[in-house]
């Protein structure tokens, strides 16, 4: 795999914390690899694990799920549900053979632009080392 290969990471972020965190990374000009594409949802509780499978199916090399830190949810409890759902769903995806490094779940607050940058950098590095995802993927 050539070094300049850019993995495709789909990021599901909640509107109130993680999307704003990504905005902050932007306003602070914190550069990170151009691997991530963000889908804005109101809350991490809106993110259906099936969306993640669909992303892998259609060609994502990695998926990031990000929400407010537990206790800080704009809707008070959405990320608590997300936490339960994704703890079991991620284990299950791994059980089906998905490489654990391809799905990451992080709590990123609106003030953590730097954390967003680090998460994307690290995730990109790891996935770049693994190469494109072939599992569960449509031949395109």
């Amino acid at each position, binding site marked *: 795999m050539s070094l300049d290969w850019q993995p495709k990471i789909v990021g599901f972020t909640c509107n109130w914390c993680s999307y704003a965190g990504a905005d902050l990374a932007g306003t602070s000009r914190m550069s990170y690899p151009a691997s991530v594409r963000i889908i804005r949802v109101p809350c991490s509780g809106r993110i259906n694990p099936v969306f993640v499978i669909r992303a892998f199916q259609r060609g994502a090399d990695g998926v990031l799920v990000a929400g407010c830190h537990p206790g800080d949810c704009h809707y008070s409890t959405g990320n608590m549900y997300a*936490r339960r759902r994704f703890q079991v769903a991620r284990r299950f995806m791994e059980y089906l053979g998905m490489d654990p490094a391809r799905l990451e779940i992080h709590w990123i607050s609106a003030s953590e632009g730097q954390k967003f940058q680090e998460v994307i950098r690290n995730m990109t590095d790891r996935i770049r080392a693994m190469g494109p995802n072939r599992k569960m993927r449509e031949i395109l």
Partner: protein
Amino acid sequence: MNDLREQLREAVASAFSQGRVRSFVCLEKGFYPFASIPAILHSGSEADRVQLGLSDAPLLAKYLLDAPKPAGIVVRQCDALGVSRLIRDRRVKREDLYIVSVSCPGVVDTAKIPVSPYQITALENAGDALLVHTALGRTELPWASVLLDRCLSCVSGSASPDADVVLEGEKEKLPAPVDYSGIDKVEHMTPDERYAMWEKEFAKCIRCFACRNACPACSCRKCSLDLAEPEWLSPAVTLPEQFMFHFTRAYHVAGRCVGCGECERACPVGLPLMKLNRKFTRDIETLFGVDDARIPRDVEVLGTFLPDDPEEFC
């Protein structure tokens, strides 16, 4: 054994004669002389058709959806779990049901009998053994060796107490623990090995939806996977879509699976579907426990949370 059948027949007949039910979901004789198939009775005069179901008895809970209410049903422990699943999912109301629970010595799986079903003339429960009668004579097989998989991890062979009529037979199957060794085995593989294994399995799937139709936890009026828009699942039978299908099916019953294994039994190509369901069951149990007093009984484990749930994300 026959006593129990007689009691059951009477219970069914009297439920009709007392006007408690409009229909009754039970087992009756099927194509093979020894196997049972589901039936929905509509009058007391049909009570003679009722069978206990020595072998290959399907679970009856799902048939309640089609039975005119109030409906009676004969349940073993496994079926009782399915019925309570439907009640919790609010697909049937307890007050619309007349439940007759029977104790159960376990149900024979004819696939485990090393004789072609066409040759079998009769099966007989002889305590610790199963007597298989054929035109050529008689074979005796150890009882435990011929039971359905679900009976091997049966929670209890005695009749379920939450019933309108409780019928206890002479012999019942002892409870047995769930065997997670198959799941351990998969967990110990590398991701690539796991993927290869599931790829091989899912390649067999013909998307007949028998697993869904048999499952007491899969009771939506219209399955979201059948929708054209949004297209959660493409009708194309490609491997990625198979992963999508099996992920979604298992995720939708996660935390709700009653462990009956009916999906696996219904599968015509023999997919190890319980290996998927039980993975969720066990993970949920280890992560969140099942009996936290702070969670009301009627709340589903993935439909709730506790502030001090384990945290593995950062």
